[in-house]
């Protein structure tokens, strides 16, 4: 059986999310608003590459992020996202954005696994972006 493939829309949608900025609100210990300013989704990281793998095609996305002298290559395999890989679904239960489920889910996973870490704590190397096992499977409604 061949490898699964991603739908074509996931890379441009994910790029748009990763390169976005938004106005963050900062609060002091007393709960007062102290500052608002634009912050990038990437925090202190920079996106240097986001594309399908040149050898594996649409079965793998490569996302290269750099920060503080470290370079992290996130590898995202379609086989790990069998139900979302087409990037055509929108699940009302957890996705109210303008983007499809896979792009939104990948942006959350990349944030959890890379972007909210200090580059010095992660170091350079490869990270496979995977989701937790679906423990809801057998009887979920």
């Amino acid at each position: 059986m061949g490898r699964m493939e991603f739908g074509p829309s996931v890379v441009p949608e994910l790029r748009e999310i990763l390169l976005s900025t938004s106005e963050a609100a900062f609060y002091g210990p007393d709960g007062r608003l102290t500052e608002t300013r634009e912050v990038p989704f990437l925090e202190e990281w920079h996106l240097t590459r986001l594309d399908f793998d040149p050898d594996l095609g649409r079965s793998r996305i490569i996302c290269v992020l750099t920060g503080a002298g470290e370079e992290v290559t996130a590898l995202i395999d379609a086989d790990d996202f069998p139900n979302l890989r087409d990037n055509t679904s929108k699940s009302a239960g957890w996705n109210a954005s303008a983007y499809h489920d896979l792009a939104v889910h990948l942006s959350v996973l990349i944030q959890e696994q890379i972007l909210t870490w200090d580059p010095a704590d992660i170091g350079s190397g490869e990270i496979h972006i995977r989701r937790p096992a679906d423990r809801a499977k057998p009887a979920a409604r």
Partner: protein
Amino acid sequence: MAPAWYVASVPVIATAPGCGKGANVRKVVARYKARKYRAAGYRTDTLYCGNSSYGYRHLEPHIAQYFGGWANFTFSMAQTLKAPARVVPQNNGNYLESAPIYQCFFAGYYIIWTFFVVPQISSGTIVTAYGREGRRVNQSCP
């Protein structure tokens, strides 16, 4: 006086939130009082059992990466949402909210964690949450 987000580092026996294999994805695990973004008052954010994409089943692996089990984890979620240090509305439809959590040790030092909670902007459904261990300070808790 201790800051509002102070968490004592006493070992806590985790209470299972009841999201075993048969539990419905929309079963409510907890509701939290969450500060509104740039507005007065609070909204209610909800943690559902969910699935691998959101909710308790998505964030469960992060509980073991934090200290104090589920009890401390859900307490830190509550404190972060009620008194965040930073709230970022993101164009993937989620807020990224964070606050420092102090893990205090009787031996006279503490560790500053940053706790993150990611609720959906429109509904308050919690997508994920996790803590990041930060620097150690070699003096008693403030």
